[in-house]
């Protein structure tokens, strides 16, 4: 990079000089486009706050999230400067619990995305690319998973595997891949007869290389958008499992479980159930806004 050329010009160069510059330039263009969308930026901000809260939970949280204060004097205190969101029935600071709960939420979201997205992509692109009986078998399996209500299937898995946050993650991941498989298959069907796929076939490429290197990158953007939009639902499912006592176990500060424990005093001590509810609402909204913005940028078809 010569001294006179600014970083921006380097990124937006029409004649990139290296693979890295071409890739970074493409990413920068996407970022510039996303930045124009104010609501998506709000969503991204919320997600970033969640991530930062999870990383620096020990620094941010003023109290211990697991063990409370004096049970005689500090139980069910209303929000005040000492306890920003009040305290619960175990005399624990709710704000500290919510900050630490962001770790669990983020873990659920990240793990489900990491497990479900590749499964969905692999099943969908394979079915779409090969067609025929491969398609029939894979998509009927997908249909079976789709036919179950998500929460009920997750419940069944948790019941079989035992309650706990890890099992809740597995259960949610297993129930959330079918829509991605459907989506990836639909995208693959429109791609597989394209000239550029024929061209790479004529170069002698095998099916694995074509699916991974040529089909998946094109399905990726719509699947990413869909996963981001589904994050809200995943958080709610995790919270729902926690609420039913099948997700995170006490005394873990999981938001859904916190609502469940606050339910008993909801009339007299509204903040116990409301504060984690607000946290779930804000984070779900953040992922939805970000997903909408990503869709406009990554999926030009939907934007029109």
């Amino acid at each position: 990079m010569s001294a006179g050329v600014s970083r921006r010009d380097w990124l937006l160069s029409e004649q990139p000089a290296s693979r890295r510059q071409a890739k970074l330039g493409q990413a920068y263009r996407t970022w510039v486009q996303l930045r124009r969308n104010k609501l998506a930026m709000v969503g991204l901000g919320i997600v970033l706050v969640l991530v930062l809260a999870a990383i620096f939970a020990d620094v941010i949280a003023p109290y211990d999230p697991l063990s409370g204060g004096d049970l005689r004097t500090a139980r069910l205190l209303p929000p005040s400067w000492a306890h920003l969101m009040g305290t619960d029935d175990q005399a624990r600071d709710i704000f500290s619990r919510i900050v630490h709960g962001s770790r669990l939420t983020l873990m659920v979201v990240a793990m489900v995305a990491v497990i479900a997205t590749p499964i969905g992509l692999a099943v969908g692109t394979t079915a779409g690319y090969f067609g025929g009986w491969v398609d029939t078998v894979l998509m009927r399996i997908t249909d079976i998973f789709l036919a179950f209500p998500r929460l009920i299937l997750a419940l069944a898995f948790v019941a079989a595997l035992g309650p706990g946050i890890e099992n809740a993650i597995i259960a949610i991941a297993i129930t959330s891949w079918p829509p991605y498989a459907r989506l990836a298959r639909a995208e693959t069907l429109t791609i597989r007869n394209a000239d550029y796929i024929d061209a790479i076939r004529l170069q002698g490429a095998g099916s694995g290389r074509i699916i991974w290197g040529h089909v998946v990158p094109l399905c990726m953007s719509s699947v990413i958008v869909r996963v981001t939009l589904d994050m809200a639902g995943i958080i709610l499912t995790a919270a729902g499992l926690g609420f039913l006592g099948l997700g995170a176990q006490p005394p873990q500060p999981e938001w859904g479980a916190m609502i469940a424990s606050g339910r008993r005093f909801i009339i007299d001590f509204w903040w116990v159930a409301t504060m984690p509810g607000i946290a779930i609402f804000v984070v779900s909204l953040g992922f939805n806004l970000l997903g909408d913005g990503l869709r406009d940028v990554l999926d030009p078809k939907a934007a029109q």
Partner: protein
Amino acid sequence: MTASNTKGLISVRDLGVTFGHGTNEVKAVRGVSFDVAQGESFGIVGESGSGKSTVLRAICGLAPTSAGTITFQGEALKAPRQPAFYRDVQMVFQDPYASLHPRHTIDKVLSEPLAIHGLDDPEGRVERALEDVGLGQGFRFRFPHQLSGGQRQRVAIARALILEPQVLLLDEPTSALDASIQAEVLNLLDALRHKRGLTYVLVSHDLAVVAHMCERLVVMQHGREVEELTRSALQHHEATQEYTRNLLVASEGFKAKGTST
């Protein structure tokens, strides 16, 4: 070059291509035969839906052969084709806007066939391939959407040539381009053929393009072969079939209005 006889590098005999089953059955190609010699440029002409592109796709294995045989270098081709086949036979598609992967840089497009076949010196080969089709190194890391139609088609030609094939199958390589770019691309193809001793099979609906590029041609209609002609026969209006004469008249009429040379 292991061609046993100079007569047929590629030899197509009674080729039939059928799509679909039962009532949806479409016979796209019915009993087409021709030979293409080493170093020759062979044309296939016909209107839309005459099955000319299907013949090309059948040769490279993209369309199923339901009858007849296709021989390359004296050996009957089997489906699916062996990887080695693609080192000898490559194809350039009609629409340069559809034949390049939208998310791959030109560099990736050109290096991938080298990676598949494990050829040495990929960097040098990509650079040379770009030079050969008249694109500078400045194009190497661009994405297809940053190129014009003519430049894209040059990339497609570079991709087809990077495996150093003997045969290039050209499926209306210029019909999606502006008239001024068409001539550029045709001249490039002509120059490359002479430089490398390539064999071309060119499909076109444009008799002028075929007359310019090919020594021999076959005229197709409704999936059937109408007649086979040499370039001089075409230029001297020695077509024996009514259909070919009509096609000739149609193209002449267009020529008289368009470019009076």
